[in-house]
């Protein structure tokens, strides 16, 4: 049931985004670009933070493996 509610919620958001894109795309292309661009900048920045965690975890694993070998 919970999954169904999430499905409905995300469908509403998706339809809202399509509507917004259609309206803003025609009348306010720069506003639309701002929405899309801001989301992209925020998500790439967030992904960069998560990537750093992964890099550090791999570095720790590599250091541990080298210690084991030696």
């Amino acid at each position: 049931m919970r999954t169904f509610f999430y499905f409905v919620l995300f469908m509403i958001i998706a339809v809202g985004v399509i509507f917004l894109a259609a309206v803003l795309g025609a009348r306010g292309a720069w506003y639309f670009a701002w929405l899309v661009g801001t989301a992209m900048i925020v998500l790439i920045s967030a992904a960069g933070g998560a990537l750093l965690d992964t890099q550090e975890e791999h570095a720790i694993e590599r250091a541990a493996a080298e210690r084991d070998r030696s």
Partner: protein
Amino acid sequence: MMINGTVVTLSRIQFASTALYHFLFVPLTLGLSFLLAAIETVYVTTGKPIYKDMARFWGKLLMINFALGVATGLTMEFQFGTNWSFYSGFVGDIFGAPLAIEGLMAFFMESTFIGLMMFGWERLSRGQHLAVTWLVAFGSNLSALWILVANSFMQNPHGAAFDPLTMRMQLTSFQQLIFNPDAQSKFVHTSVAGYVTAAIFVAGVSAYYMLRNRHVELAKRSFRMAALFGVLATIAVITLGDALGFVDARVQPTKLAAMEAVWQSEPAPMPFNLIAFPSQARRENLGAVRVPYLLSLLVTHSLSGTVPGADALERRAVQQIESGIPAVQALKVLARDPGNAAALAEFNAHRKDLGYGFLVQRYAPDLNDVTPAQIDRAARDIMPPVAAVFWSFRVMVALGLLMLAYFVIAVLYTLRNKIHRKSWLLKMSVWMIPVPFIANEAGWLVAELGRQPWTVFDVLPTWMSASTHSVAYMAFSLIGFLVLYTVFIAVEMYLMVRAIKLGPAAHGDPGGPRSPPRPALAPRVAPAAPYGGKLEG
């Protein structure tokens, strides 16, 4: 009634100085709120407590900046009424709506959610708090949107028409006001310039911690996120600046001529004045260094495009002034006799040049006796202060390119996870902190000085927009504002430096003091585990 020229100048200095002070705070809020949203998004998706500490720390700095931004912004809205009363009466019907919506956004949406964001860490679930942080980011940027919609009406009046019976501008289309091309490109350019400002600020403060070997894990992550945020935002801000220039080329040719110091029209392809010392009196550039073909390419995106020079624009202004004089004369008749059909027909025939009729009234209060010399003098007024606009534009662009170069280097090293070992880059990052603030101020000077001699471009000249105060009143209030705002800046600097020196440890980092939750308001989220080696949540 003629307004004293000194009063107009003092009113302009007062508004410009308060706007420049205010604009030191605004861009940081615009950008830091979204950077904070990015940090908290990582916290909610990964559950790693270090990101919560990052969000709390940068959130505190955002709060300090936000509070002073609101305090400095309040007085500006009052100045429209106190110092620019003719302007407010003339365009208040249009200008008032976006300002009112901005007030609602800033003081209801943004302020409410920023309170929840700051004090809701122990009271809201992770998801709820993240939603609040995103709403703060959208609230602050939407608040800026409405100010820029209002400002863009002044740059490129869309969606309004002058009514000769009410003697003021009236709104004809709210949609045209919001979707004004100048509003769109200016909002996106300004908002994203705020992202760049926040990215440099966060990178610089993080570099300071890494140089001192304090909070290194937190600083490395903050730096990484800020560098990626900043490089994308800087690319965007440069692209959007080009778009804004493209819009200005069509709607504000005098601003463009001033930005590029083009005194004489030339055939395509036009050269670009890389460096020049424009002389307003002599209508020429001294010691110009020119790059062939570049101006046509930059401004029109073609080798066959041209930019009208001041000479052509002034010649056109003479014709517009000659057409605007009958419009003002008809308006005076309509003021006495609103039913005069002949005066209304005369006004409608010349209404598009009404502003130019006002422009010459500065030199010829009685338009029945206007001389060609007075018309020529008014026509020369259409050029903004060229040297100031020219150099402000170059400072903004040069600093924008410097920031792009900085972010590209910063991204290269942070993606290799070597940034904490590059002390030269860390030191450079600290020194870069003032750069976006200077670029923002320079950009604002280009926009506002370039609009002169108009408060509403082509419609209402600045000389007749001010209130009829005394010089003493204006001088006294100007000194008061400068002192007060300088105190605000000092308070901001003190609080920021103090919070940065205290560091995130004081806000929830392991080892720092953490106040226990109040029993009645126990947190719903499990207490964060200290992060160490693997930083797991």
